[in-house]
């Protein structure tokens, strides 16, 4: 009697074991299948995204070249009477002060990318506009003289707006990672930013923050339409 009972228990145990194993096998093959499909789709989108980003870089270069050509034309224009000489000089200086020229110099490069580690609250592991706003403010406190985000120059009207996984700067949307370049006293920029609360908090939430000191950082000019940028302003003489 006892023998039979034991055998019965064993049989049930093996049946359960068999079902469990086949379920697992099925589940794993299924998962592999869907994961492969997802991966394939993912790779396709990544490729498209890279192509589009490359196109964007080329377009930016074209814009920059066009602006350079227009400026060169104005600066090299014939000026028999010499009337325009002082205008040209003042214009170059004003452009320099407004962020309308490409500049280089010592400074820091800050790279930020969203956390790869999943946190309980997904809002914690992504970068918000207020984070970047605060970082920019810290950089300005440290006396930065020229700043760009993803190579878009920060000027007096530059906004930082977060929409989903993107950040809008000067009307253009940028996606993660965010690269902030700042020219100024590099030690001061580096130290003040490294000690700042905003960076400490981002690091706590596993945001990948990298701050590098560099001797030759290139910050490009603002390339938006100037007339539109000041369309509501009238000079008070």
């Amino acid at each position, binding site marked *: 009697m006892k023998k039979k009972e*034991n055998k019965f228990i*064993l049989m049930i*145990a093996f049946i359960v*074991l068999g079902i*469990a194993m086949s*379920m*697992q096998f099925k*589940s794993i093959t299924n*998962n592999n299948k869907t*994961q492969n499909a*997802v991966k394939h789709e*993912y790779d396709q989108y*990544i490729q*498209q*995204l890279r192509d*589009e980003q490359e196109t964007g870089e080329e*377009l930016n270069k074209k*814009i920059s070249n066009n602006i350079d050509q*227009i400026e060169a*034309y*104005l600066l090299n224009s*014939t000026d028999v*009477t010499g009337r325009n000489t002082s*205008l*040209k000089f*003042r*214009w170059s200086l*004003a452009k320099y*002060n*407004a962020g309308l*020229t490409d*500049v*280089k*110099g010592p400074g820091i490069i800050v790279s930020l990318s969203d956390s790869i580690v*999943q946190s309980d609250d997904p809002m914690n592991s992504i970068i918000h*506009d207020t984070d970047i*706003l605060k970082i920019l*403010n810290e950089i*300005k*406190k440290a006396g930065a*003289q*020229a700043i760009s985000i993803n190579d878009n120059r920060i*000027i*007096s*009207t530059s*906004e*930082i*707006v977060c929409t989903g996984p*993107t950040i809008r700067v000067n009307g*253009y*949307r940028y*996606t993660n990672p965010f690269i902030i370049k700042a020219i100024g006293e590099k030690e001061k920029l580096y130290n003040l930013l490294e000690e700042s609360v905003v960076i400490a908090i981002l690091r706590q939430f596993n945001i990948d923050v990298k701050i590098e000191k560099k001797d030759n950082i290139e910050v490009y000019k603002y390339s*938006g339409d*100037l007339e539109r940028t*000041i369309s*509501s*302003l*009238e*000079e*008070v003489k």
Partner: protein
Amino acid sequence: VNRKILSITVVCIILGIILAVQYRSVYNNTYLEGIEGKRLEDIKTQLLMEKQKNDDLRLRIEELETQKEELEGAYSNTTSVEKTLKKELDYSRMIAGLTDVKGAGIVVTLDNSVGLVADSDILNIVNELRASGAQAISVNGQRIVAVSEIREAGRYIVINGNKLMPPYYIKAIADPVSLKNALNLVGGIAENFQEMYNIKYSIEMVDEIVIPKVDSSIIKTNYLEPMKNK
């Protein structure tokens, strides 16, 4: 008998382990799928944004090409070059914040008679105003330029190296209605001030606001070097 009990025990232990492993594997798989799905959605959104940005860039190129053609049409005409130069100079100086400007806009008043106004409050308002199209902004007479910092110093705020005392008057020039609407959005900045921080806050639309120029010594360029021939 003891041996049989032992063998059943061993089988049960193995079964238990296998079940646990399977549970773990299934759990992991669903978890991973969730992440991949989320990433895929992100990538799709990014792609859309990138395409939209490139379209905007193409429009900008068209604008510049037209501008170039117009200029070339005016070739060797000193007067028309002079006119363009003057215009460009004015635009540049306005963008740099080197001229007094006027226009329609709003005045935001923040009074910390009850709560304390933090630097981040002003930073957020200024950013919100920029996002809704503000073309010139000042806080208590300090023009906000590209390099203007906003620093908290006890009960004061320091901007452009100048100590500012409350109440804070933030002036902005752009379409007053869209500026006001942006600040008054549900769940927006205005609501936060009134409900959470107990800060006195008001917005006034004005037909003509004057915003002073920045002290030009604020804009330093000693670390900058112009880039030639990239």
